[in-house]
């Protein structure tokens, strides 16, 4: 009797949603912040949305270690292979487009249509950057006609570990990550505020992709807390601060000068210079002779 009562009751009451626990994405795994801290994301319609992890300086350090370890292998992968791995991520993003759109609506309160457009723009941007993997040395390399019997060529190479601090949106996150990793860098993304919701779903995409663990690490929380640590970290080579308030950029550049970090910000335009900004240029000489 009791059990039949229960089953009839479940027909009349709504099913309780299974909610996601938001964690960080470091070295291909989903740890909580070592600090045990979370922060609340809310919206005006639903109130409480989620408790993403509030990443700490220690989480950042762990992410940098993972990124440094993974970078060499990622850079060594052929450009064709990197392009295919990134393209497959776009395929998976497309399949989850509705989910991303709903999460953007949930986190930022924009209309479903606007959120959907943002997701499609992000996917297209990702595909565009993915296709650059095997064209960078054609665009940014050269063979140089030096005055002497030498073969002299210039090629672009990834810088190493790049931190990115995008603005609080899914599109900004994609536009910061894609140009940084396509050349063979590894990335630590500092995702602010409500952008954490879609960002951690993006991490689920990454986790089931062929992107090697550690190539892309995602920390959620506060730019004010994490960006200064990233700027002064001696094992981060470059820092995209496009999402940082203009007034706060100076102190980051001052801190970054300690290892002459390459610190750049971009106005959002999709451009190959955004890739090249986080590449180095190597020139090789060799004599010609019999």
């Amino acid at each position: 009797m009791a059990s039949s009562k229960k089953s009839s009751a479940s027909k009349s009451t709504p099913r309780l949603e299974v909610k996601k626990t938001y964690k960080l994405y470091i070295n291909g795994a989903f740890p909580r912040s070592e600090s045990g801290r979370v922060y609340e994301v809310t919206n005006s319609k639903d109130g409480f949305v989620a408790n993403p992890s509030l990443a700490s300086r220690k989480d950042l350090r762990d992410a940098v270690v993972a990124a440094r370890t993974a970078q060499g292998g990622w850079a060594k992968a052929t450009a064709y292979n990197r392009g295919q791995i990134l393209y497959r991520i776009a395929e998976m993003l497309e399949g989850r487009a509705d989910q991303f759109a709903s999460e953007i609506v949930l986190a930022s309160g924009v209309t479903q249509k606007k959120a959907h457009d943002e997701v499609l723009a992000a996917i297209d941007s990702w595909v565009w950057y993915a296709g650059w993997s095997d064209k960078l040395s054609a665009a940014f390399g050269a063979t140089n006609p030096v005055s002497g019997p030498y073969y002299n060529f210039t090629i672009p190479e990834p810088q190493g570990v790049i931190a990115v601090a995008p603005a609080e949106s899914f599109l900004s996150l994609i536009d910061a990550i894609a140009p940084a990793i396509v050349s063979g860098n590894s990335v630590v993304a500092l995702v602010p505020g409500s952008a954490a919701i879609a960002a951690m779903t993006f991490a689920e995409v990454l986790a089931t992709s062929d992107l090697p663990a550690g190539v892309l690490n995602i920390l959620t929380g506060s730019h004010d807390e994490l960006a200064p640590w990233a700027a002064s970290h001696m094992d981060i080579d470059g820092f995209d601060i496009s999402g940082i308030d203009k007034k706060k950029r100076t102190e980051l550049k001052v801190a970054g000068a300690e290892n002459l970090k390459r610190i750049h910000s971009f106005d959002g335009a999709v451009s190959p210079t955004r890739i090249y900004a986080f590449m180095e240029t190597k020139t090789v000489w060799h004599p010609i002779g019999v």
Partner: protein
Amino acid sequence: MTFEYAPAPESRAIVDIKAKYGHFIDGKFVPGKKHFATINPATEEVLSQISLGGVSDVDKAVAAAQKAYTKTWSKLSGKERGKYLYRIARILQERAREFAVLETLDNGKPIRETRDIDIPLVAAHFFYHAGWADKLDYAGLGKSPQPHGVAGQIVPWNFPLLMLAWKVAPALATGNTVVLKPAETTSLTALLFAEVCQQAELPDGVVNIVTGDGSTGAAIVNHPGIHKIAFTGSTDVGKKIARAIAGTNKKATLELGGKGANIVFDDAPLDETVEGIVNGIFFNQGHVCCAGSRLILQEGIADELIEKLKVRMAKIRVGDPLDKNTDLGAINSQEQLSKINELASAGEAEGAERWSPACNLSAKGFWFAPTIFTGVTQAHRIAREEIFGPVLSILTFRTPQEAIEKANNTPFGLSAGVWSEKGSRILWATQQLRAGVVWANTFNKFDPASPFGGYKESGWGREGGKHGLAAYLKEGK
């Protein structure tokens, strides 16, 4: 066997050094208020009195450069700008010997180098960039890339006129105007270059030269009328500049220090390699940011190669820089000599073994014998810090991976060298090395068409080639 050479001094009659120099501002020489002496580091003879530029001199120079930018230089077509650069290149070639002798007197580097390397490269840089002036649409920076405006340029004392050329030529070709400060100890060729600008009828204010010390350089870096900084010098000063401009819209290229690794694999042709090692570290008294100052030898050939190197080093002729036989000239200043001495002493104190050939060094002037240290470990200061003198630190390795690890174990990343007869190994090593310039089976080669600059703490940006233009242009559409 010892070869004896009769002295073959180059005549200094070709140069006419004034007793005192002002700044070159708005096309004219303007007397300075305070002065300091510039000396010949080979003899300590006072050559001239140089003006010590202050904030007001920099103000005037920036105002002149700003005026020239808006009134004349930015209105010229690229084609016409290019013709001025061609003129400058040609006059530099015509007066090449005069520049070579003056550079040797003021800097202390051998006449053989100023005559055959520095000054020809200076002319080549202007000639190369002259051709770019009307072809900037093809520089990979979009359609009609635009200049920044006024470039503040600070150059070092190791290649005084060559570093001026590396900076002034691309700045002018891309349509910027210039305020340049030569290094405190080597202002004379920059001031002679001002005369070349006059002879070329370069419009007034397009190139301005303010002489002085670090405070003059700081005044340029901090001046609100400067839009772009180009600096070559130490990593410490480079970091200071990066901090100073952090809150501004100023662009910067920085060519900073290095600790170049020169890797020799056991299949390398040893005699050629020895020549390359000597050129890598003793060229220009080792006052070279991209010097091959860490020699990393594969163990099996280390003893044999070091013996050959010692035999070769005993034949290096150290002495009068104006003598056409001289290989190694004077150290540029007492200050630099003290720094080299300090690091060399640290090398001994930390347990490395020091060796120099017998050298008859003059009592006058600043001299340092070519020196090698063996038994150097990665922890030694002489393996980590830039010595900027004729001092080579020698380390060894067993496996290629170990060589790369040692080579890359430095915050610098300017240059590296690889010696091997095996093509695939060379290409592998050049790929692994984290350095902006890699010389394989050669060393210390430079060309205006070849981009130069470092990874990591060796700086920001490139100079030379298509890549060097980017530093002076805003991307077009």
